[in-house]
């Protein structure tokens, strides 16, 4: 493996890549979004509303348009996120103490951002009623509009920064990828090359050979993960709340477990190309449904069951728990158990499956 | 193309990879209908030369003419006139024998019918049964080689380049191969063969030795051996030492240049007939029999191995001397 410098470099570039991408680039938070407003009313009140909305961090200065079609075009052609239409009778209705509907058009093609922005704007509009209407109506509001507010506190991530969650599980993503693919492929590559037979001729047992193959890659994987964690700390201030040692232990077991998993599956591959296809086949679900990108809380039964069959789920869970919540052995104990079990079973299964194929 | 022009003409062909010179100003020519053998150690540059002549690699300097076409400018046209069998058996393992034939034939724009006809002709010659629906993967290496050779011959090329065709093949298969090669040469094809097996070179019409990118020997096998030995090493046998001495005397007087001889036992004398041109052995035999009918002689030419190893050593000593004198 030391000879395959390109491979090594490729593996070690990943932490850097992820640090940049997930730390800097990716965010779900809506900030300074562009929007348009079609103000049919053109009164003091509507202007006040617009100013109120603009003061949201989520929005920037709006562009004023003069027809509904233009609003729709903004969403459709220029892929804008939202547009607001204030009807001509806005001020009148409010003056009479009636409800004054405003339309918030959201770009459903940008589903999650639209949802968030929609929430913000709705809340701001409702709040406007409480603070900006003339006093007479304000008393009215006290009777009718809900005087309930929610004071929120964010645990584990006070700034509600997207990157906390993402970066804490990125090592899981990265390692899953690396370990699965390499494990699946390297044994098959050796088999193809014929050097595998030479290994078999030695006094080593099949299990020992397999484990021996894994060890150098575990080293590289740990190195890559450390790079990620150090980078997260220095650049984004994400410190591991819990025990670093525990984290490394979990990572170690995970890597062995995943590789054994991969080797087990690779027994069916006849050549490297097949091994790679197989690796990808397992890798996709491993990354998508194991809680790395999306939380696992809402999974339907079947998907949840599937997710529990993948080692990455336990690793991602433990990783997040230790990094952000300071979880200790008690909380991640079950994860460790599962991972170790995975390793043992996969290895046994791998040996069982490979033996007959060797003849 | 007139038949007196060589079918392969190589002039100062050079190939460098960065600072490393793999092929260094090699020049030679090959006649039509010849078996031309290329000998060299691993990394000597012989595969590079073949790949250049096949158009796989561009020369850094120098040029060549293959089948009357210029290597640098007409490489793509050359390809239809040549067949190539590479060192690694490059058949598609996941296809059957038949599919491989149809594939390679198709690349030369041969019609399936024509391909099958060729198959019918060539398979028996190479001792292959008509079992062609087998996956190549399942074949033993000897059979794979033969199939690979046939793929190279499907389009009836004028020249066939064989890069170590008998590597890793057992003795019997090697024999089969070389029989076919000689048959093909007799039919007028030119065969350019590289090999590690020095004894195979005795089958060739001309042999070239390559060492470290340079052509250090180019002649017929006999010529090379003679050059290396310095002449015909002849051993005379007779029970009677006097007869031997008499024979030796006669040989010297008959106009043969004789290098000082040795009498290593009572019954044999070793002479070296250094002569510019090949000795007429049949005449020598008649003449010697005239002296004494029981006089016998053998010609003990050095083996190709001796020649090759010897020439390489000479070459390397010479280049070392050059380096030393340059300092």
């Amino acid at each position, binding site marked *: 493996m030391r000879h395959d410098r390109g491979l090594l470099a490729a593996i070690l570039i990943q932490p850097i890549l992820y640090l940049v991408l997930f730390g800097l680039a990716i965010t779900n938070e809506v900030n300074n979004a562009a929007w348009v407003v079609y103000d049919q009313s053109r009164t003091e009140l509507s202007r006040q509303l617009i100013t109120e909305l603009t003061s949201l961090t989520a929005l920037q200065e709006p562009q004023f348009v003069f027809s509904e079609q233009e609003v729709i075009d903004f969403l459709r052609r220029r892929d804008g996120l939202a547009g607001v239409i204030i009807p001509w009778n806005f001020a009148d209705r409010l003056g009479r103490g009636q409800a004054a509907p405003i339309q918030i058009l959201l770009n459903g093609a940008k589903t999650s951002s639209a949802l968030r922005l929609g929430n913000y704007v709705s809340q701001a509009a409702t709040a406007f009623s409480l603070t900006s209407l003339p006093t007479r109506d304000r008393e009215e509001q006290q009777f009718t509009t809900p005087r309930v507010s929610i004071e929120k*506190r964010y645990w584990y991530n006070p700034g509600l920064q997207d990157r906390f969650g993402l970066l804490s599980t990125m090592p899981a993503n990265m390692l899953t990828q690396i370990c699965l693919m390499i494990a699946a492929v390297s044994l098959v590559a050796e088999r193809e090359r014929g050097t595998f037979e030479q290994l078999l001729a030695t006094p080593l047992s099949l299990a020992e050979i397999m484990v021996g193959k894994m060890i150098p890659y575990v080293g590289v994987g740990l190195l890559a993960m450390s790079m990620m964690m150090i980078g997260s700390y220095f650049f984004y201030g994400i410190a591991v709340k819990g025990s670093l040692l525990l984290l490394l232990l979990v990572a170690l077991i995970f890597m062995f477990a995943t590789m054994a998993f991969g080797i087990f599956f690779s027994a069916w591959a006849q050549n490297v190309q097949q091994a790679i296809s197989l690796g990808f086949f397992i890798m996709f679900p491993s990354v998508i449904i194991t809680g790395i990108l999306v939380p696992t809380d809402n999974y339907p039964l079947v998907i949840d069951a599937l997710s529990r069959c993948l080692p990455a789920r336990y690793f991602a869970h433990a990783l997040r728990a230790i990094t952000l919540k300071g979880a200790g052995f008690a909380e991640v104990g079950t994860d460790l158990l599962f991972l170790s079990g995975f390793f043992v079973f996969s290895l046994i299964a791998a040996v069982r499956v490979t033996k007959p194929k060797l003849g | 193309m007139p038949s007196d022009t060589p079918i392969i003409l190589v002039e100062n062909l050079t190939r460098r990879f960065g600072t490393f010179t793999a092929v260094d100003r090699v020049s030679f020519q090959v006649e039509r209908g010849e078996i031309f053998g290329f000998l060299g150690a691993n990394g000597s540059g012989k595969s590079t030369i073949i790949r250049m002549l096949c158009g796989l690699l561009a020369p850094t300097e120098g040029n060549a003419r293959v089948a009357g076409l210029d290597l640098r400018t007409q490489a793509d046209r050359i390809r*239809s006139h040549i067949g190539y069998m590479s060192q690694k058996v490059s058949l598609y393992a996941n296809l059957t024998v038949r599919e491989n034939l149809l594939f390679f034939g198709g*690349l030369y724009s041969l019609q399936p019918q024509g391909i099958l006809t060729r198959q019918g002709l060539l398979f028996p010659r190479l001792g292959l049964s008509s079992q062609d629906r087998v996956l190549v993967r399942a074949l033993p290496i000897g059979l794979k080689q033969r199939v690979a050779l046939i793929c190279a011959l499907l389009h009836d090329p004028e020249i066939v380049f064989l890069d170590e065709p008998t590597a890793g093949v057992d003795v019997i298969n090697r024999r089969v191969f070389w029989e076919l090669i000689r048959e093909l040469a007799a039919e007028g094809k030119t065969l350019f063969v590289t090999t590690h097996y020095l004894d195979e070179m005795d089958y060739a019409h001309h042999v070239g030795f390559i060492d470290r990118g340079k052509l250090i020997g180019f002649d017929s096998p006999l010529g090379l051996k003679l050059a290396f030995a310095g002449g015909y090493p002849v051993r005379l046998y007779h029970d009677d030492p006097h007869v031997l001495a008499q024979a030796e005397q006669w040989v010297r007087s008959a106009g043969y240049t004789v290098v000082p001889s040795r009498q290593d036992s009572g019954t044999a004398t070793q002479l070296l007939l250094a002569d510019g041109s090949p000795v007429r052995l049949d005449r020598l035999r008649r003449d010697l029999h005239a002296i004494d009918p029981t006089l016998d002689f053998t010609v003990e030419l050095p083996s190709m191995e001796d020649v090759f190893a010897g020439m390489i050593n000479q070459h390397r000593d010479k280049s070392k001397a050059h380096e030393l004198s340059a300092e």
Partner: protein
Amino acid sequence: MNSLQNKLNRLRTLLWREFVELRRDRFTLTILVLIPVLQITLLAYAITTDFDHLPLCVLDRAHTRESRQLLDHIAATGYFTVVPLQDLSETSPLFGREQCRAALLIPADLGELIANRKEVRLGLLLDASDTTLATSTEGFLTAITQAFYAQTRLERTPLTDRNLQPEERGGVAPVRRVLFNPTLSGTAYTLPGLLGMICLFLTVLITALTLVRERDAGTLEQLLVTPVTSTEVVLGKILPFGVVAMGAVVFCVLVGWLIFGVRPAGSVFLLFAITPIFLLIGLSQGLLISSLAHSAMDALERSVLTMVPQMMLSDFLFPLALMALPFRIIGEAIPLTHYLRITRGIYLKGQNFSELQSEIAILCLFLVLFVTGAARTIKKQA
């Protein structure tokens, strides 16, 4: 030898061989078919923006009729399952074990505040390790509680001759209109993105691998000795995989339609007409990778490396518009980004050719760039 007839013959031979090999390699074929299906299924179910029965821990300090009504109301929405707490200290371990993701704190003086028409402040603790979940939870709870109290208020307000009807309640009433994906369906959102991913994956990875394997096995050299030109070799490789990838795309569209009910709002045929362009781009990428890679593993890692940033910065999972400028610029330089705009445009917005012209033009530009690059490298491969 280079007449058109011969060229076509040779191409036909190359294509024939590739298909025979593909057919023989049942393993890879099955996997190639299964991966798209798997992706669709998983993404459809896994990536949803709403949720149900999320455990919500509640510390009810008031224990009044109103608080119980509030909790009933929350539970009735189906979004949350109420888990009662006895003490605030319970929240920490529960959060740690992820047995609950949010905790609602109802103050003890709830009844008084309501009676005196003072503002009620509810406390909400959110597990913010997943920000999307946190904000969604917060949004839902805010909406639910506000709606609940509006209802309560109304019941308590003495009837005056004003006779307040709901619509006369006054105040700004935001009405949300969602264009292009009215149900805000996660599946509808991810399917077009998925098509792009599948195209990318199948083309880049498989092409890179195949060529490297061929080169390793020595057969590439054997090919180049024949009258075949390097262009023909390239075409002979990419066309079959292009066909396979196209088949996968059609398959996914059908699966999405028939099984998940995701219909394109625009023309499917437009989609099918533009997809080959993107496929060719991906295939050229694969060729470029194969020319640089030393071994199959190397090709693999390189492919993965190129695909990860493309996945992240192409608006596939994470909104490009929200990223900082340098990333947006990089994003624009990725062909996948433009292809996704086209697929989403067709699926969600029902855009037609004239609206998508600029994106299509950009794709064509990319095509020219990539293909010329790839054609140049094939020569060096022997």
